[in-house]
């Protein structure tokens, strides 16, 4: 009964080309030699087919068979091992990386589209390549050439996977509290000792080697984030030929029992139980935290993408079910005949809400990715503008899309009725799997704090205000579009509300940090919804660029639904944004009981 995954290639290709402007990236020096925009569609076509036929069928098996910890090692489901082997053979993981090390040299934006297809197919499985990409990103930027040549080619294909080791029992969101030690051996290597938790795919049997990137403290390091260095600690040390040889002193001592993503082993790793794991510093001493931040944008965007990817997969299932399941007689249907539930208005609302938000999320995530690409490819003022846009959009992409991942997979389950609550339909798995998205890679609360604490103050609020001004212009442009007058009016109103909220935060946040933090989450939702409103206006205005008239019509209706029925919800958040912290702190813990 679990429905198949159909890669939404028409949507992906359209948003890449016409909303995110991915094809135009081919004109930039950074990509001009390696990126052929005419190959985006053929590549995604084959990637989509592979994901749907090979990876998507492993999703339920991963959930039920689960990765297991057996005699000190992690055993993944057999279906994962077989699919991963094929994934490595395709080389799809290498597409957005440096051609020097075997990469395809395509923009990150196209890499994000590939990630969407992978994640919708199987989120738990996708985390292995995802963490590997994060590790590649860090090594590419900060390791020396010798390290890059030794590790990157095999990590790019996925033959070797990668992990990120930040958290420790006392150091979760507060990474500065890291206590893992790194003692210099004298030959450039260090002995690492300590325990790391929440290590995704920290141990497994799909790849030939696992390259752990570990945050640790060297002797005499200053406290807090300023004393952290990043180390590379491979599971198997490389022999003289550069192949995995002797096992390093790293052990998986347990895995977590989680609500979802059961196929993805979340490991507790112990470094140095037998004298110290051998590791090498990546970048200079004490630059660990800063280096970690260079890949933070990509990592947070990828997690936001998970919200989109699972909402899409759950939506497909609910849409198929709504056409098959017959219950009740719809208005206008023949009496005594049960109608497919898709004929009922409220089921339509569940479906349209999903459809419209999914379109908006895809526009947001891909636009964010393109702004990251542009920020790296352009210099001067253009580069700076792209970086500002990328930085502003990151907390919106991460938080809004993972919150919506929760909400929309819940709506999908609602379409199934009681059967959605039964595991057989697969709706429940998507709902369970995506729940982590709002928590990891910086909780959504932390994203909201990042938005009001770091992003809003950029140029004294100028970055946000400039963007809102651009949305005002977009609203005017939209007003002349047939059937979009109400949407245009709503966009203007919502932008005005967002401007009021932004001014309030700028004014009060400067003197009372808690005032800004108290309203940060509703502000993120408001600003995210308004930014999506602007992107959906784009979608409405550009839909006719598609050669498929039915598709164009569907996008226009989806955009109008957003503009008329979703966008106005942003206005209702103004009270929560501007209320300040008083009532949040008015009650004692005892009174809260």
């Amino acid at each position, binding site marked *: 009964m679990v429905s198949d995954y*159909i890669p939404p290639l028409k949507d992906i290709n359209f948003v890449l080309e016409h909303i995110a402007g991915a094809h135009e990236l081919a004109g930039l020096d950074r990509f001009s030699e390696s990126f*052929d925009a*005419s*190959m985006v569609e*053929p*590549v995604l*076509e*084959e990637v989509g*087919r*592979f994901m749907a*036929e*090979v990876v998507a069928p492993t999703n339920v098996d991963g959930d039920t068979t689960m990765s297991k910890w057996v005699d000190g090692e992690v055993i993944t489901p057999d279906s994962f091992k077989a699919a991963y082997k*094929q994934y490595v*053979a*395709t*080389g*799809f993981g*290498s*597409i957005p990386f440096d051609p020097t090390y075997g990469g*395809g040299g395509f923009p990150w934006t196209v890499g994000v589209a590939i990630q969407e297809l992978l994640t919708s197919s199987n989120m738990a499985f996708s985390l292995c390549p995802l963490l590997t990409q994060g590790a590649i990103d860090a090594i590419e930027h900060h390791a020396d050439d010798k390290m890059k040549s030794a590790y990157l080619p095999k990590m790019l294909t996925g033959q070797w996977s990668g992990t990120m080791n930040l958290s420790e029992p006392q150091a979760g969101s507060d990474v500065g509290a890291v206590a893992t030690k790194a003692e210099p051996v004298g030959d450039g290597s260090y002995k690492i000792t300590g325990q790391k938790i929440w290590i995704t795919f920290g141990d497994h049997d799909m790849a030939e080697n696992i390259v752990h990137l570990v945050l640790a403290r060297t002797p005499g390091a200053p406290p807090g984030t300023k004393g952290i260095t990043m180390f590379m600690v491979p599971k198997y040390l490389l022999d003289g030929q550069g192949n995995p040889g002797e096992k390093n002193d790293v052990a998986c001592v347990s895995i977590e029992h989680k609500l979802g993503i059961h196929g993805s082993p979340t490991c507790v790793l112990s470094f140095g139980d037998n004298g110290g794991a051998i590791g090498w510093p990546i970048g200079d001493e004490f630059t660990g935290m800063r280096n970690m931040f260079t890949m933070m944008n990509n990592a947070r965007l990828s997690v936001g993408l998970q919200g989109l990817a699972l909402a899409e997969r759950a939506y497909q299932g609910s849409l198929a079910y709504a056409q098959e399941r017959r219950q009740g007689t719809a208005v206008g249907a023949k009496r005594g005949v049960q109608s497919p539930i898709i004929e009922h208005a409220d089921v339509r609302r569940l479906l349209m809400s999903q459809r419209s938000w999914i379109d908006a999320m895809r526009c947001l995530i891909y636009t964010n990715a393109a702004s990251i690409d542009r920020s790296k490819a352009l210099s001067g003022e253009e580069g700076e503008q792209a970086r500002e846009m990328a930085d502003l959009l990151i907390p919106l992409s991460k938080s809004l899309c993972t919150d919506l991942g929760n909400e929309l997979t819940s709506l999908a389950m609602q379409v199934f009725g009681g059967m959605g609550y039964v595991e057989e339909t697969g709706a429940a798995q998507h709902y369970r799997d995506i729940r982590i998205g709002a928590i990891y890679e910086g909780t959504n609360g932390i994203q909201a704090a990042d938005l009001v604490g770091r992003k809003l103050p950029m140029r004294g609020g100028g970055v946000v205000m400039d963007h809102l001004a651009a949305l005002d212009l977009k609203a005017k442009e939209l007003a002349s579009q047939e059937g979009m007058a109400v949407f245009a009016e709503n966009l203007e109103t919502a932008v005005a509300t967002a401007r009021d909220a932004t001014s309030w935060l700028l004014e009060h946040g400067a003197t009372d940090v808690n005032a800004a933090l108290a309203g940060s989450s509703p502000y993120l939702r408001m600003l995210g919804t308004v930014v999506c409103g602007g992107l959906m206006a784009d979608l409405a205005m550009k839909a006719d660029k598609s050669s498929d008239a039915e598709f164009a019509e569907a996008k226009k209706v989806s955009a109008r639904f957003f503009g008329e029925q979703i966008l106005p919800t942003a206005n209702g958040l103004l009270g929560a944004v501007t209320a300040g912290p008083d009532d949040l702190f008015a009650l004692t813990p005892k009174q809260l009981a």
Partner: protein
Amino acid sequence: MKVAVCVKQIPDPADPGALDPETRTLKRDVKLILDESDSYGVEMALQLVDAAGGGEVVLVSMAPNNERSGLSTALAMGAASATLVSDPALVGTDALTTAKILGKIISDQEPDLVIAGSESSDGYTGTVPEQIAGVLGWPSVTAAKAVAIDGSAMKVERQTDAGYDEVECSLPAVISVTAGVVEPRYPSFKGIMAAKSKPVVQMTVADLGMTAAEVGWAGSGQEVVDVTVAPVREAGEKIEDDGEAHLKIIEFLESVKAI
């Protein structure tokens, strides 16, 4: 070693479109994909060339509108080049005429072996491979499940209802393969990128030295006279097992002469 593989590009079976009300044939003016049943032939050809220590796999195909998306998949898998016949005059071409057209290209290519899927997933005539062999005057082996080439001879394990026959024949020859005989590889990123610059030679009916009267509806000895909707599957019979249900099953199997 040179292996020619006949590949058909068909409307996506997941979204097959409609029948043309006039000709009562499948509308083919949509995006076409590689017929999955042909991906087995491509894979087998690639494996045979590998086993021979070198050579090439070439594709021959006939499709409307110079459509090449399906060919791109096969080229990305590793085929070296393709020849595509596309011509408005070809609409309505029957199986035998298709075999004549493909046979002309194949004989120009001079391959050691021709591989085709047993039948396409849209037309299901299931006769083209044997007709190509007939047109060329080459040996034909159907339902090949394993093939070994030894110089100018070939040993084939031919699937039968009871098991398989061992067949030997000389080369060049035409074999047909059914789904599942090998596991088709998925194109790699490098394969997809390389496919873009692989040659796809496009030919018209005139290029083949044929006339419009010899092909299409005009040249074919067939006509689709009627199309009816497949009957809806009727509900099955449910038998409560009172300990004797197996007898009912035997009775049923006997009634349809299955045992």
